[in-house]
């Protein structure tokens, strides 16, 4: 059973729809106690970093998740801002991330080294390049692409990088460390590619 955290940020509707379509048993939860005894948790997120961190903290989920993730008791998938919150912090704000994956988020530049303009946010579909295999990337091939919508991206140690993508600059699309994985894109908005990712996550959780 996968639990999807409802902490007042980000729409869960699309995530729940896709999981439901895939026949993956999933439930939305809004109370931190509800992650007890659960093998897999999805942390969605959209919008501003500080706002999301604050809501996660106020809901009680931050501490609950941190405790169980550090103890290795759950497998956690962070999506978009949910992934960004896994790290230490973001240039976007002043709030502290969970520090589960060491790193920081920085903004895409508006001007590139060669003088070209870059429109921020990065909004659209992009292929990814898997650099370190992970259970979550099973079945990905050259056609695999995902829907991204973000102005900030996560910088972290190379050993935590599962997949990269490019938008003016190279950035991390999927990061992972032990039982925690994060994807910058929105699998729930990436039709069959997102479905593959959720299937992989479920399989990984249940193994």
């Amino acid at each position, binding site marked *: 059973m996968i639990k999807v955290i409802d902490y007042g940020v980000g729409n869960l509707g699309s995530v729940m729809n896709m999981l439901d379509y895939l026949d993956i048993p999933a439930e939305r939860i809004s109370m931190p106690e509800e992650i007890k005894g659960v093998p897999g948790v999805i942390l969605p997120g959209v919008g501003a970093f500080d706002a999301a961190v604050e809501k996660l903290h106020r809901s009680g989920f931050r501490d609950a998740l941190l405790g169980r993730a550090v103890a290795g008791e759950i497998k956690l998938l962070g999506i978009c801002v949910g992934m960004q919150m896994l790290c230490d912090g973001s240039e976007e704000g002043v709030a502290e991330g969970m520090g589960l994956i060491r790193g920081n988020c920085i903004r895409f530049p508006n001007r590139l080294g060669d003088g070209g303009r870059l429109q921020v946010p990065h909004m659209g579909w992009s292929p990814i390049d898997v650099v370190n295999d992970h259970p979550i990337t099973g079945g990905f091939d050259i056609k695999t692409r995902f829907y991204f919508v973000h102005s900030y991206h996560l910088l972290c140690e190379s050993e935590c990088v599962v997949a990269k993508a490019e938008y003016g600059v190279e950035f991390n699309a999927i990061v992972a460390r032990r039982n925690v994985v994060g994807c910058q894109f929105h699998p729930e908005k990436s039709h069959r590619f*997102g479905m593959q990712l959720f299937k992989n996550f479920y399989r990984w959780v249940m193994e």
Partner: protein
Amino acid sequence: MKRVIPCLLLQGERLVKTVRFQKPTYVGDPINTVRIFNEKEVDELIFLDILASAGHGSPNFALLERIVNESFMPLSYGGGISSYNFAAKLFELGVEKVILNTAFHDSPDLISCIAKTFGSQAVVVSLDVKYGWGGQHVYRNRGRKRVKGLVVDHAKRAEDLGAGEIFVTSVDRDGVLNGYDLPLVGLVSDSVDVPVVCCGGARNIDDLQDGLKAGAAAVAAGSMFVFHGPHRAVLISYPNHEQMVRI
């Protein structure tokens, strides 16, 4: 990878298509149409409620919920969004971006307000542009009422307020299948740093490419994806993967 977005008009519970924002003709059932676009692995969809937009009603949340439930790609919605609560409710349903048109003129603070909580990337300002006395102007309420000021000034203002994207529609080219208003696309794209999506007039892949070359970050079309042939038979279509790669 460039975004190619079908733009669908809702009138009540029906999908319709207009010509120069007039004469809505029936295209089909929105749920069925979304299912077809799902199968075609469309990158993104735009839904505009033209009744709500013209001031006759507010977003049809029940219908939107059903539409969103069928979509596994990003969906933007516009039409009569006049409050933060409406927008919040739409995001809760699963809508990716809200498109504001009349509200941009009536209550521009709404744009900053929504952008502040949900992020700029969640807010699109839509500018409907028509030729009138003294050149091109922005119109509100589905092309009924002219707004003062230069088109580019409106675009810049939208960007300053926090809109993450500008959606520019040429009312004159809507449904006419005569190509985009490329000078308009270029004018708006050059004036702002945020992505500009153009709409109105595209009839084939060459037109889509021209729109991108003119500076649009993404291209949208209605008639091109719902009609086929000189007699405008309804046929839902979308470029396949090979064609998309070439765009």
